[in-house]
């Protein structure tokens, strides 16, 4: 291993193969970004809370996933339980602390989620140590498929597929179910919903919990690609914010479109203009906000 065995193997890909590979790369990256942003947009849409702790919850999901894979032996179990665990933690935080702050101005949320981020980040370091930890993908997803003779990881295809499933599931939840109706109504006019006799507090707690759980899901899904590591949180929170802002805070479809846009710009941009890699995401955000200050599908201007 480590040596190019067959000279015939070392040829370049054809342009078509390159475009195909890059296209699928972009879709898999979009999936990752979508999972990152969807929880944040849900929380902001309903509660107008800018959740600074989003990145650390994402990281927490990855580390809990690590432990579950390591000690229970199953990645699938991790995929199920880590989001539930972090969702529960999020709900507890909402019940205990956030509830008291709804009457206050937005700055209170900023500070308190900043505090949560610090506490969670350090807790992760204390529990799991400072080193990055391996989270192997399950055997079923560890191989490659050949796209025009080029190996492409099955795991990334899984990410795309799973992303589509979750996106559809959430869309159905928001559009077709009573809970979804409540969520959407509360985001537009909480007072009215309250007047209609619905326990708005419960809706909020539920939504915050789901949002945190989705963040953790993102972390578990990313872990086989980037390992469970401490640097995850910082980069994640910024990326999530950008996706959500581009799409429009509070718009679920927006976060999907935002993720796709950013992913394609980054994947093709980094290939042809790698010097701008650091700036692409922010340039896109700037352009979108100047043209449409509320984001592509945003409600708030």
């Amino acid at each position, binding site marked *: 291993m480590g040596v190019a065995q067959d000279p015939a193997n070392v040829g370049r890909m054809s342009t078509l193969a390159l475009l195909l590979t890059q296209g699928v790369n972009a879709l898999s990256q979009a999936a990752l970004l979508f999972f990152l942003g969807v929880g944040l947009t849900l929380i902001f849409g309903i509660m107008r809370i800018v959740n600074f702790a989003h990145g650390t919850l994402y990281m927490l999901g990855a580390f809990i996933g690590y432990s579950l894979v390591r000690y229970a032996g199953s990645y699938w179990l991790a995929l199920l339980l880590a989001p539930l665990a972090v969702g529960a933690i999020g709900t507890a935080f909402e019940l205990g602390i956030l509830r008291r702050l709804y009457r206050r101005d937005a700055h209170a949320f900023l500070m308190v989620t900043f505090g949560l981020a*610090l506490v969670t980040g*350090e807790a992760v370091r204390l529990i799991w140590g400072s080193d990055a930890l391996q989270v192997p993908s399950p055997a079923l997803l560890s191989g490659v498929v050949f796209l025009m003779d080029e190996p492409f990881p099955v795991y990334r295809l899984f990410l795309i597929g799973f992303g589509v499933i979750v996106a559809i599931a959430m869309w159905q939840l928001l559009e077709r179910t009573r809970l979804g109706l409540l969520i959407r109504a509360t985001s537009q006019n909480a007072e009215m919903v309250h007047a209609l006799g619905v326990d708005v507090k419960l809706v909020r707690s539920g939504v915050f919990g789901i949002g945190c759980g989705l963040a953790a899901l993102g972390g578990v899904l990313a872990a086989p690609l980037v390992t469970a590591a401490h640097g995850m949180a910082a980069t994640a929170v910024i990326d999530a914010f950008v996706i959500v802002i581009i799409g429009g805070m509070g718009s679920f479809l927006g976060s999907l479109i935002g993720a796709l846009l950013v992913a394609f710009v980054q994947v093709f941009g980094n290939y042809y203009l790698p010097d701008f890699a*650091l700036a692409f995401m922010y340039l896109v955000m700037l352009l979108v906000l100047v043209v449409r200050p509320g984001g592509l599908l945003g409600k708030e*201007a």
Partner: protein
Amino acid sequence: MPKTNPLPALAGVAVLGLLMAAPFGLPVFAMTLLTELLILGLFAMSLDLMVGYTNLVSFGHTAAYGLGAYASGYMLLNSSLPLPFVVLLAALLTGVVAIGVGWVCTLATGVSFSMLTLAFAQLLYAIAFKWTSVTGGSDGLAGIPRRAGPFGLTIFTSKMGFYYFALACLLGAFFICRALVRSPFGTVLHGIRQNEAKTLVLGYNTRLYKIAVVAIAYALGGLAGALYAPFAGFANTELLFWLLSGQVLIMVIVGGQGTLIGPILGAGFFMLLEHQLSSYTEAWALFFGLIFIAFVLFAPEGIWGLARRLFARRGLPAETRHG
């Protein structure tokens, strides 16, 4: 004219007296920290103009700090201009750039405004990172000297001299801000904060006022950064990293927004707390976070608000809120 209470002014003079006498009483390491504290305090106060008085929450204020630091660092390394000129020039430069930034950012309001400020800060970060010939890239500018003042005055090159210069900058900025918020300009800002639509209807071009506030706030933030570069001797991309933007916002809120003095106290509190906690334990971030959460829950009006309540409980009338 209503009779103003002399006590707050006296207290202010007393504090000022202490600060002026500090170099003669405090040990060297404390002086170094105090100087940095003044610089951070200036940085936080400048943000308060936007956040506390006009409700323009910036997630990218570190752009001002970093720009000021790089400008002053570059000039000190590459020209023979004296220190005070460089610092003031760098602040001015930052303010001018901020007019453009403000113009774009005020196209939006609310969270979108905040995110635009973040975008600018991140772009500036990316530029600083890549433009190695001017900014030193990821290594930054190092070995920034404290050049002698005009006419061969070497007063600013010493620690004590620099401290007084920083103090003078902070005081100057404070009085400028205070005058600003007490003036008709400040009243418009207040109107924008309370109800922008109404203020607009009253005939004020709120956008112009907002751009002006952004420019002034950035200029003062740039002043802080311009002081930091010769203080620390370096300027690097960490000064433009978004984490610092979040931290300075926290300083303003913890200190008490909309009070000018509050954020200075907030900056001091933040810096000292971080410094002390991290020397006691590796897990300092945990306690740091818990303290912030406690602040939000139990001291929503911030440090300055708490301090004023102490005075009030003692029977002394609390100073009327600025602006």
